[in-house]
């Protein structure tokens, strides 16, 4: 017999003190292996206004493409200084920022590696359940064969690929909840 699922409800506007504590917008410490990246973006609503009360969570593999989780049994090194989880709130303009490393490629369907990516959850007042998307990287050859990217209509794929900022190591990734350039969100 199966137990029925507990329903989702909105995170509301008052989660900050409970959920967003200092330090979680950085996934790295001095000892973390890998290429340092900064991810900056805005969460925008259907009027292209910044969403000032959203929370973003990241989940990613380490620089070698290994998740810090018992279900990842790959023979790749864990990194004692990288666990792969980050969380940040948006500011009054809807902006967020994370400090991390570029993840390595992890296995996908068949024998094909997935392109490097970061899994993203978005929570906010007005979102009765989370939204899920992925951040992919620009100029990444594996993007062409990535099964998840290829499941997305070609004209919308670009919403999943971060852009290089002029500043070295900074990637830009806006999350558009609704509207002309709406981000692709996934049913997981």
């Amino acid at each position, binding site marked *: 017999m*199966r*137990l*029925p*699922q*507990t*329903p*989702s*409800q*909105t*995170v*509301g*506007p*008052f*989660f*900050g*003190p*409970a*959920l967003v504590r200092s330090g979680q917008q950085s996934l790295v410490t001095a000892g973390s292996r890998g290429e340092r990246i900064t991810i900056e973006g805005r969460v925008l*609503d*259907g009027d292209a206004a910044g*969403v000032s*009360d959203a929370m973003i969570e990241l*989940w990613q593999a380490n620089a070698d493409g290994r*998740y*810090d*989780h018992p*279900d*990842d*049994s*790959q*023979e790749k090194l864990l990194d004692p200084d990288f*666990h*792969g*989880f980050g969380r940040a709130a948006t500011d009054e303009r809807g902006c967020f920022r994370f400090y991390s490393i570029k993840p390595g490629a*992890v*296995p*996908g*369907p068949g024998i094909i590696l*997935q392109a490097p990516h970061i*899994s993203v*959850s978005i929570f*906010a*007042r*007005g*979102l*009765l*359940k*989370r*939204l899920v998307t*992925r951040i992919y990287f620009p100029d990444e050859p594996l993007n062409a064969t990535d*099964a*998840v990217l290829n*499941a997305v209509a070609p004209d919308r794929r670009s919403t999943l690929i971060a852009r290089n900022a002029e500043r070295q190591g900074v990637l830009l990734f806006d999350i558009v*909840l*609704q509207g002309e350039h*709406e981000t692709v*969100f*996934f*049913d*997981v």
Partner: protein
Amino acid sequence: MKIPAGYRRETPGAHPPYDHPSYTSTHKRAPRHALVRLEHTLSEITGPRLAGETLAPGSNENDLTHFDDGEALGERIIVTGRVLDEDGRAIPHTLIEIWQANAAGRYAHVEDQHQAPLDPHFAGIGRAITDDRGAYRFVTVKPGAYPWRNHHNAWRPNHIHFSLFGPSFATRLITQMYFPGDPLLTLDPIFNSIPDRSARARLIATFDIEVTIPEYALGYRFDFVLRGRDATPALS
């Protein structure tokens, strides 16, 4: 490498839609495009394990009633239960985070402008880790109802916010726990955004005299069911 089975999907009717007519804030935030189905990969089957790095052993962050060396005002309550998957298996060592209004219906948050008093001894935030049986327990005060501006004379029913991770990215859940007999429930757009009546009822805690501590606090039971493993293995 063999990739373990993925997780089951949302049960239709058990969760709210993104756009709900009577909850105004959904209208400009709900996506217009259909979600793209993502077959679970290692990225969704794995997920953050925050128990160890978040809470020190012996932490008392599950007791919200003694903030800043004083006693919180209000009706003291125990909220306890288990975190299970759809197959009834306990989910041990997973982080639960809660937040709530104080007994007067006011959050200790700069954006909360409701004209009700703050309580210097109640911050309204707590954390706990489930034990080997998936059990958790919080000591807090019953949150007050409070007005919000969704529509004329709108009041949120008494509720506590809960955030849970479970074993994977796929099992992440944020929800709200309500109280039995609350007359505001039938009027609340957020509660009523859940299509199935029986699913809505699962967000209402059960009063339990066995959990109640004599001369100290009323007891409520509230269990969580997160998505279980799919029988068929993930693509590998």
